[in-house]
């Protein structure tokens, strides 16, 4: 009986073709899997599956190349924007994007991030901000909130000791080379749809030579935050969105 309804004409949802069946190493509840899927869907919808090159970070998404069947380069920690700059300059008709976490993009690679964006390189940076270093076991990130506890600020982030959270997306919106800077999230269906539209807008802009785009996805790290996936989403909504306000910070595309 159940088998009767499994037919192509009844299909309402499917995995993007670019996503393979490799089991993901991400923790259950992590935002990465959702964002990977959105990236794959947008590439397919744009018809760019054979003309796309991704650049992976060092961090939790270091193995992003395992899950999307496209060409990838694995960059040194923080250097993805420099790597992507060269690929795009040398193959201008390719879609080139980086996929980076907060430690990679906003800390060790802040220099590369700012300069690639400021040169107006025609690429997109997908920025996963979960306010913690997930891969290395939950240490303080440049985006860790004041008072937030991590392995290297176990009593909470204290600006006198640890400095302030870095709002690099805000900073990026002030750079002349950027055309589209936005902050999204993927905790519910509505947010996911908005995030996908943002990624598509950014990718399209980079193919149209409009300049650099930065798409921040405010994300959860339930393992690092030591919360269940549901509670992590609640914590994100209650705490992260206050500091990292969602929406477009710069949009020169619709003008």
């Amino acid at each position, binding site marked *: 009986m159940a088998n009767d309804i499994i037919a192509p004409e009844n299909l309402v949802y499917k995995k993007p073709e670019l996503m393979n069946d490799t089991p993901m190493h991400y923790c259950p509840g992590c935002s990465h899997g959702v964002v990977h899927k959105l990236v794959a869907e947008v590439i397919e919808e744009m018809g760019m*599956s*054979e*003309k*796309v*090159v991704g*650049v*992976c970070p060092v961090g939790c998404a*270091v193995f992003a*190349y395992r899950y999307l*069947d*496209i*060409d*990838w*380069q*694995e*960059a*040194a920690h923080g*250097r993805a924007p*420099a*790597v*992507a*700059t*060269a*690929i795009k*300059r*040398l*193959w201008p008709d*390719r879609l080139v994007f980086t996929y980076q976490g907060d430690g990679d993009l906003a800390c060790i690679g802040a*220099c*590369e991030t700012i*300069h690639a964006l400021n040169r107006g390189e025609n690429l997109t940076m997908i920025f996963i901000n979960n306010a913690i270093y997930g891969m290395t076991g939950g240490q303080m990130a440049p985006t860790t909130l004041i008072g937030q506890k991590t392995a290297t600020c176990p009593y909470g982030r204290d600006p006198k000791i640890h400095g302030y959270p870095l709002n690099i997306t805000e900073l990026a919106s002030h750079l002349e080379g950027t055309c589209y800077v936005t902050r999204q999230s993927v905790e519910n269906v509505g947010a996911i749809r908005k995030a996908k539209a943002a990624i598509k807008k950014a990718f399209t802009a980079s193919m149209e030579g409009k300049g650099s785009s930065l798409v921040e996805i405010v994300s959860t790290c339930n393992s690092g935050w030591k919360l269940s996936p549901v509670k992590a989403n609640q914590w994100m909504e209650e705490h992260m969105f206050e500091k990292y306000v969602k929406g477009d910070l710069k949009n020169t595309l619709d003008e």
Partner: protein
Amino acid sequence: MKGNEAIANAAIRCGADAFFGYPITPQSEIIETLALLKPWETTGMVVVQAESEVSSINMVYGGAGAGKRVLTTSSSPGIALMQEGISYMAGAEIPGVIVNVQRGGPGLGTIQPSQSDYFQATRGGGNGDYNVIVLAPNSVQEMADFVDLAFELAFKYRNPAMILSDGVIGQMMEKVVLPPFKPRRTEEEVRKECPWATMGRTKDREPNILTSLELKPEVMELRNIHLQEKYQTIRDNEVRYEAQQCDDADYIIVSFGSAARIGEKAVELARAEGIKVGLFRPITLWPFPSKEIAAAAKGKKGILVSEINAGQMIQDVKLAVNGALPVEHFGRLGGIVPDPEEIVNVLKDKLMR
């Protein structure tokens, strides 16, 4: 023209696709010359002034990983910053060309010439077990000739290749015959030569993934063994050197790059005094011409390794001759370039007493 200008001109002529660099003395003429010549309007070569040497080398990683002929140039402190990227290139087997117009160190050091980056260049330089092909030019002509050679070797072996020059060769002016124009490769040619390149995955192949990461030690050991086997192939096939008047010599001066240029004059001065001296010049510093030096040293009374550093290549020379004859060192430091007379005097003092 200057050695630095020769590098820039040769890069355009040999079909280089891109240059990424950051200014530093004594090699800024390279990027300045490229900026003046505007190759993006003629051959389509991309020229980008990066925000740092760290970015430059990672742009080389990205561009060369996408199958293109890409180079960067710098001087010692900048090359030190690039070591992370060079190690990643070696690990991911990405070909690219790095030019080091050396200056004295350590630290910010001096803007005057030196050869004190020999260890860094020939031992890998960054983390991990790897080697970079190292070519040492001794003239403006070789600065021009080695650009294409470095690209050829880099792509033949999917390995970074370095031209280890110094402030003397970079800044001095000589006559030079520039290489003939070679067109940049077409997309089809890149696809054929570099089936591993990340330029968009077509349906007829698996995705190309360039990475130096592997968490399984069993697999990582195999990768390392593969690299070591490749390095052995390079050692077996790519040694280059030049021997001048070594056959009848009693003593041999071993020098590379600008020191070898000075060594030629020292040989002439010594022979005028009746001392039979020859010059052995390694052109590839890695792979090092160990067997060739051992053969040239047979029956000789001694070797003087003359280099503009505190004694670096002498270790490779000693390993090559394995105690068969005395090996002494002469070097000036801190940006001082030695006189040929000094070299002859040291040879007499250390080897002829």
